[in-house]
Each structure stands twice: as structure tokens, then as C-alpha cells.
């Protein structure tokens, strides 16, 4: 159980850290002008020059591999719902690192997810 919780914490840290670093890097670049292949390629070309994107990539790879480890240890019906804990950590990251506005309704959703994940993990 402790091993599972520790790996889940590692997974959440890597995936949320990766997503926040990727968001920060991509937001520095701006937005693609259009949702067309050429515009997207140009946008990706700019994004890969951001150090934050390169910081995010190994974190995302580690998060995927830790997800595989979690799946080798616990049932799918525990791992996938527990991965929703991302929403909780992500909300704090969005507020304090990305300076986004987190509304009371969003906090309420985060509390629901938190309690739901706790219930799922306890039964895992």
C-alpha cells in the first residue's frame, strides 16, 4: 500500500510538474495563428526552443513510465481514477505558479476529486 501511494505521488508530481512546465513554456511562445498543419509545425518549432518545454519532456516521460509501473501493481479501476488527483495538484500549480484564477466552483470540484481519489485509494 505504501509503495503504491509513494509511486502515485511520484506519478502525480511528474505529470503535474510536466504539464505546468509545458504550459508555461508554450504560453511564453504564444498561440498558433491557425489550427492548420503548417501553422502547428511552425508553433512546435518555436516551442522546442523553450527551455521549459525541454524541462517538461523528461518529466512527462517519467510520468508515463510510472503510470505503467502503477498499472503493473494495482487494478485499472484504482490507478486511472487515482490519476485524477492531477486536478488537485494542478489547481494549486495553476494558482500559485501560473497565476491563473481558480474560482470557488473549481475549488469545489477539486475537493470532490480529492475525496473521490481518497475513497478509491483506500479500496485499492
Amino acid at each position, binding site marked *: 500500500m505504501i*509503495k503504491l501511494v509513494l509511486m502515485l505521488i511520484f506519478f502525480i508530481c511528474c505529470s503535474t510538474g510536466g504539464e505546468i512546465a509545458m504550459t508555461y513554456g508554450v504560453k511564453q511562445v504564444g*498561440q498558433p495563428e491557425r489550427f492548420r498543419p503548417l501553422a502547428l509545425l511552425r508553433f512546435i518549432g518555436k516551442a522546442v526552443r523553450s527551455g521549459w518545454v525541454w524541462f517538461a519532456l523528461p518529466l512527462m516521460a517519467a510520468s508515463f513510465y510510472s503510470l505503467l509501473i502503477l498499472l*503493473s501493481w494495482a487494478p*485499472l*479501476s484504482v490507478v*486511472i*481514477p487515482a490519476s485524477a488527483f492531477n486536478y488537485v495538484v494542478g489547481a494549486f500549480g495553476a494558482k500559485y505558479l*501560473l497565476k491563473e484564477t481558480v474560482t470557488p466552483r473549481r475549488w*469545489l470540484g477539486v475537493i470532490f476529486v480529492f475525496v473521490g481519489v481518497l475513497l478509491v485509494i483506500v479500496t485499492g
Partner: protein
Amino acid sequence: MTHEHRLRFKTLVMVLLMVVCANVGDLMLKRGMLQIGAVRISAPGIWHALLSTIHNGTIWLGILFLIGFTLCYMTAVSWADYSYVMPAGAFGYAVQTTLAVVVLHEAVNAQRWFGVVLIVLGVLLVGQTHPNTTQKKPVAS
């Protein structure tokens, strides 16, 4: 068929494809890891598991479905609002748990189902808030 009906229909099809790809992808990853077995936390154990995942066709199939999910998601949000597409992510947790019971024959008790319902409600609440609360940067050219 009006433009709005067409948009609604194609977005709905894309959202359904998204849910199918995400759930089948995760199911394939679980199947692949069941074939490989429990990963041991030691340098040789992790290295062995890494090589096994690279050589496992089911894992690659799972990754293909997850790439399919990303493409469907990107296409769907290019047509419709994020807040319209996002609830599909919440719905996915319930579908995934059902698939775990039906396909993998996992035992899910009432407490875990209640947890999943809370997660679905929580993700739905998060999804109903404004998706962009920061000022946009100038368009990259």
C-alpha cells in the same frame, strides 16, 4: 442539416472517438503490464521492465490509441469550446471503471464506485469554469 447541427454531430462523433481511444488505450496498457508482470523497484528490475515494455506489442497498441485520443481531442477543441469537450474526460473515469469490471473482471465495491462518482462530479465542476483566466499573449508568427 444546418451548420450548427453539423457541428454538433461531428463534435459528438469526435468526443465519442476520444472516449473510446482513451479507454481502449488505458485498457491495452493494463493488459500489456499484466503480460510483463509486477515491476520490481531496483535498477535491474526497472531496466528489465523498460526493455519489456519496449518489446511489448500490446503496450505499443495502447500508445497508438492514446495518440489517437490526443488527435481527436485536438480536433474536437478546434471545432467546439473546451467546456463542451472537457466533460468527456470526466465521463471517461466511469467508462474506464466499467470496462475494468467487464473486460478485466476486476472487483469494484460500492465505496470505490462512490469515489469514482465523486471524481466524475469534481471533474465536471472543474470543466464548467472558464477555461482561460489569464491574458492571452500576442500571436506567434
